[in-house]
């Protein structure tokens, strides 16, 4: 199958690659760019582990073809923070022990980042509804909700 040239920006770095049209964005990030922070769980949009920001909006990278991302800007968990300089949301997850095995965590973080940008998240019910598309099999969610609750409160007066 003929490969298609695409150019996109991932975490501020421009990449040009030739991809098969059927290449999913999730596999493009992991296999072609070596960015294995984005995890692949169900590959049909149910588990949320592969969530990234695509042009600023959260998206399932397993439900997006890389060819459809030509010209796009992608942010993955690698673009948040690093050891010793965690993103405030990562710091909140760490403080609240909002992860155990870590498989769902990149998707949780990218989803929560978009929720924090778009919704008041004034109640736990709203936080839980927002996170309902991301499955976690370890924590029971309570600590994830607590971490997002703290991040929501820390936004201050500029909340939406």
């Amino acid at each position, binding site marked *: 199958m003929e490969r298609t040239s695409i150019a996109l920006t991932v975490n501020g770095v421009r990449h040009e690659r030739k991809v098969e049209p059927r290449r999913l964005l999730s596999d493009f990030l992991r296999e072609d760019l070596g960015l294995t922070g984005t995890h692949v769980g169900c590959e049909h949009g149910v588990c949320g582990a592969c969530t990234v920001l695509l042009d600023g909006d959260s998206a399932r990278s397993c439900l997006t*073809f890389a060819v459809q991302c030509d010209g796009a800007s992608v942010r993955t968990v690698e673009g948040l923070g690093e050891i010793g300089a965690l993103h405030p949301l990562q710091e909140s997850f760490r403080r609240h022990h909002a992860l155990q095995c870590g498989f769902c965590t990149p998707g949780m973080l990218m989803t929560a980042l978009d929720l924090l940008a778009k919704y008041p998240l004034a109640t736990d019910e709203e936080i839980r509804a927002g996170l309902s598309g991301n499955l976690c099999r370890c924590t029971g969610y309570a600590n994830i909700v607590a971490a997002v609750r703290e991040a929501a409160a820390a936004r201050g007066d500029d909340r939406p």
Partner: protein
Amino acid sequence: MKPPAFEYVAAESVEEATARLAEYGDDARPIAGGQSLVPMMNFRLVSPAVLVDIRRIAPPDAIGEADGHVRIGALTRHRALETSPLIRDRFPVLAAAMTHVAHLAIRNRGTIGGSLCHADPAAELPAMAVLLDARIHVARRNGERIVEAGAFFEGALWTALEDGEIVTRIDFPLLPPGTGWGFREFARRHGDFALAGAAATVTGSAGRAAEVRIALFGVGETPVRAAAAEALLTGTGFEPDAVAAAIDALRNAVDPDDDLHASADYRRHLAGILAGRALGDAWARAGGGAA
């Protein structure tokens, strides 16, 4: 799983998209947000030889008002419907329904045209189109037509679209002043497809319901209007006996399936409960018919 290999064509206009789809025939499928198509490809339930990407066709997300309708471009994303001030003002029931559609990441990508064409029996947008008598604009090579929402949905995942046709625009006729609305659905987990759902509008006049509309979804092959129940409530003051008779009528009119998630009897029961609540909300928002 991974999707099967396909050839990718990006169309820049409706003319180009429909020409390409006509050229490849039933080997081709259009793709926009891909939020219904890509899961089916990953499961290999569908294996199109060619995908025609219509995502770049302008205007990608137009929402405007003209000639007594709100017109919505087919590529408008669910999230844009959820947040549009015009939709919130003219069709608050539609804005409310959008918050129940899957999850934010899906709403950010999925389009109104895609949801209508996918035609899941439990999806919210097809039910909104049926409730609000939407007119669906369809283009094919060298032509276009308009399909009324009531005639668009022919079965589960089955529409009146023919090979080579794409949806370009959806027109929603404005509701009369004094119209209240209600939207209720029940799902085991927020964002899942509803086990059943109901939406209603009531236009009040001097303490009476001048016009009543009820749409049900998740309780049959397609979203349906509860015509008998609508007729029973039209002209009433929503007295308890009138509402009870309407709920009985709509329960008798639906034909839900048993599946893993719920029995047919339970879905029929839910349809009545949810329709009753949606009607109550709509009647209250219409000022109890005072407007």
